[in-house]
């Protein structure tokens, strides 16, 4: 049973026990009720003291969930339809490998009936780029070479006015810039860019911005500033003919629910890589990202819960002090109560009923205060966050070859 359910269960049990006690000992209930009304200011102080802890605890649960949500959203935005990636990564560098490896892996996934609806080759390079006309540059622009015929499962690139674009429609020297890259380079369609590839023997590649695409789906990959090229053109321009350095894999299902197949697909990919003795690494990128997001949310929840526990502890100390004061103040009354025949446990019960009232009211108000403040917090932090649509499940890979470009564009995020 999770903490909120346990807390709710405890509150319900407390209320039921108090109710039974009220029915069984109406005299004690009357004494407790009258004593509660006796000192309004003190009651308010006790309830406020307890309320703070409850509010912190209830809001911590919401804050944790909200943080998880934010980080999950980030994972979905950064990866889009990509669930797994295959690369030859070392020290943060992507090393190239033969494009034919993709064909082998794809064939193995089809044979294994792996729940995958897309696998796409990518040549990804990071380099300085300068906008010739605007005289503005950026050292860290990502160039992605894509083969449009494999991109169907990952969604099209979409212009600001909603047109779908594919890289095979680009002219020989053209590129699409995502909105982030366009902003970084202060670039507009038709402007010329210079790409500085390599460090020692630098190759200058000249390109023209054909269009600007929205930062969503593939164009939001890892929230980078990206220029998109046709894969063949990229291979030629950077001297990587027949090579790629990244394989993106999309599982059956949408951006959110495709990750359910991640274990199986990752295993199938690793088997394929191993069976062909390929020096490639398979990463369950989305599943790992989600696990990390959940972990961050959980850590935040625990942190706030500890803070809430301190609040509760302070509240307990406050209530103990106040009850000690009450007992001292009511000493003569307790004496006469004993004289007329009240048992010690009767007096304890009357105090317990009084305390239960404080606890229940403080718990209810605290939960209300916590959820109200959390609602405000949620609204603030999620107002800037994009909700992630869940596209309809797509069909699996076909042995007939890659799908035509944009064939599933309507089912992709942001479409």
């Amino acid at each position, binding site marked *: 049973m999770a903490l909120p359910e346990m807390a709710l269960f405890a509150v319900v049990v407390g209320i039921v026990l108090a109710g039974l006690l009220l029915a069984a000992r*109406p*005299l004690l209930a*009357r*004494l407790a009720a*009258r*004593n509660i*009304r*006796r000192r309004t200011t003190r009651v308010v102080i006790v309830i406020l003291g307890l309320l703070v802890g409850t509010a912190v605890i209830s809001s911590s649960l919401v804050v944790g969930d909200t943080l998880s949500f934010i980080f999950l959203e980030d994972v979905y935005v950064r990866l889009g339809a990509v669930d797994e990636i295959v690369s030859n990564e070392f020290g943060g560098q992507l090393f190239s490998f033969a494009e034919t490896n993709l064909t082998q892996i794809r064939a193995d996934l089809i044979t294994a009936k792996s729940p995958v609806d897309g696998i796409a080759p990518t040549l990804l390079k990071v380099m300085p780029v300068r906008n010739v006309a605007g005289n503005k540059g950026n050292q860290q622009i990502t160039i992605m070479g894509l083969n449009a015929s494999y991109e169907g499962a990952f969604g099209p690139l979409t212009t600001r006015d909603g047109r779908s674009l594919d890289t095979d429609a680009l002219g020989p020297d053209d590129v699409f810039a995502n909105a982030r890259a366009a902003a970084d380079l202060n670039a507009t369609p038709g402007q010329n860019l210079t790409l500085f590839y390599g460090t020692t023997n630098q190759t200058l590649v000249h390109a023209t911005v054909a269009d600007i695409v929205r930062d969503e789906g593939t164009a939001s990959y890892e929230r980078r500033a990206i220029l998109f090229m046709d894969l063949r053109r990229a291979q030629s321009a950077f001297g990587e003919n027949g090579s790629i350095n990244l394989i993106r894999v999309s599982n059956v299902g949408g951006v959110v629910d495709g990750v359910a197949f991640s274990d199986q697909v990752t295993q199938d990919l690793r088997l394929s890589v191993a069976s062909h003795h390929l020096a490639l690494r398979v990463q369950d990128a989305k599943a790992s990202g989600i696990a990390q997001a959940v972990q961050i949310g959980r850590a935040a929840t625990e942190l706030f819960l500890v803070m809430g526990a301190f609040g509760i502890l302070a509240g307990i100390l406050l209530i103990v002090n106040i009850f000690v004061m009450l007992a001292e103040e009511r000493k*003569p*009354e307790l*004496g*006469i*109560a*004993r*004289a*007329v*025949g*009240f*048992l*010690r446990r*009767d007096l304890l019960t009357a105090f317990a009923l009084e305390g239960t009232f404080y606890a229940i009211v403080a718990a209810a108000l605290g939960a209300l205060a916590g959820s109200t403040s959390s609602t405000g917090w949620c609204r603030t932090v999620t107002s800037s966050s994009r909700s992630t649509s869940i596209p309809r499940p797509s069909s699996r890979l076909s042995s007939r070859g890659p799908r035509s470009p944009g064939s599933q564009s309507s089912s992709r995020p942001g479409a």
Partner: protein
Amino acid sequence: MADEPIIRGIDAHKTYNSGPVTVHALRGVNLEIPRGEMVAIMGPSGCGKTTLLNCFSGLDDLTSGDVQIEGVSLSGMDDDAKSRYRSRRMGFVFQSYNLLPVLTAAENVELPLLVAKVPAKDARRKALVLMEQVELDGWAGHKPAQLSAGQQQRVAIARALVNDPAIVWADEPTGNLDSETSAQIMDLLVRLNREQRQTLVLVTHDAIVSSRAHRILRMRNGQIVEETRSA
């Protein structure tokens, strides 16, 4: 007045440890009080009067010796049994009335009956009868703070008598009252004692109050040093 003792104290000792000092509040008190008798206990402050009342009524425990009430030893009863016995057979009146401020006058009076699990309607009926006897009919719904000192003490007396106790213990019942109200309260106690044949043990400093009792016991240093019977 019957001769059979309803209260019997046998070599009753009570000591308190107050830091390094041991206070001998009762030093071997032997006492017999017959049923229906009205006894006044007098003596200077600190002589052990209130301690005697507390120990003989079972509110406090003796250090040694024994107290028998209606032939039953208090030392043989546990705390719960003593509480139940008090709720059925004893009534208490204190100097500062000790009414529960959150309850009305009638609710204070009916309290011992409710504690003894008497049905609420019967308890209320009995409480109103007692309030009438102490001449407080019409004040049932008032809280103690809305009553005068004399009225509060009358409520306390009604509360002490509502369960038809065998014994009423009164600790300075007129200590906070002016002389006129004090006389009225004593008239009331004497009348109730006479009409209802309850044993009344009252602790007092006041010679006028003690003069209304059948017997006066004088205490000094935790012992009964003198006994006087009224004419």
